[in-house]
């Protein structure tokens, strides 16, 4: 399935845009998505963490990704 993944902060700078189009096998999980990014952009491995948000909520590793989900990469947050 083809997915649009929103990126913010340092994740935006690492991927070079506000969003990335990627291809993942159907039935992929949040962890699969994270691994895809860690492999494609090794700079992500240097971060304190990388989380996946699905439909504006933090996703557990085993959460399945559906093609019409709103997906975002959440690098370490630093509000306040």
């Amino acid at each position, binding site marked *: 399935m083809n997915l649009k993944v929103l990126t913010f902060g*340092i994740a935006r700078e690492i991927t070079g845009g506000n969003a990335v189009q990627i291809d993942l096998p159907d039935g992929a999980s949040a962890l699969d998505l994270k691994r895809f990014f860690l492999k494609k952009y090794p700079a992500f491995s240097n971060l*304190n963490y990388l989380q996946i948000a699905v439909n504006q909520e933090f996703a557990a590793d085993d959460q399945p990704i559906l093609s019409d989900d709103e997906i975002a990469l959440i*690098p370490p947050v*630093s*509000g*306040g």
Partner: protein
Amino acid sequence: MEKNIDIQLLETPLDPTCCETFVSDPEAGGIVVFVGTVRRKTAGREVVRLEFESYQPMAVRQMQIIANQAVEKFSALKISMHHRLGNLEIGGVAVVIAVSTPHRAAAFDACRFCIDELKKSVPIWKKEVFADGEIWVASHP
């Protein structure tokens, strides 16, 4: 959004008075307000400015979840959380959190809970810009 909770992400300067006014309540005995400001230095380096960005709809949702938890855990009457986006100079106000409760101890606990949780789980990112470089705060070990 619940009537007793006010969450805002703003591109314009924050006004702590707005948050205080929102949380005023005839049942309130104490209001605690946290105002987060931009410090001149971090780890000894001179800060030129901060740049804030957010995943807005999710940030609002997460702030709402935190406020609901604070109402639940600390019997807060009203909560107002405003976070600034965009560029901020030294002394600028990055965040204001106001909480009212019937008794004062709970207002301190609830306000502290809100800012601590905001820093942990709200998708807002801060870049510190120095004269000689910049970093995304908290991104790397």
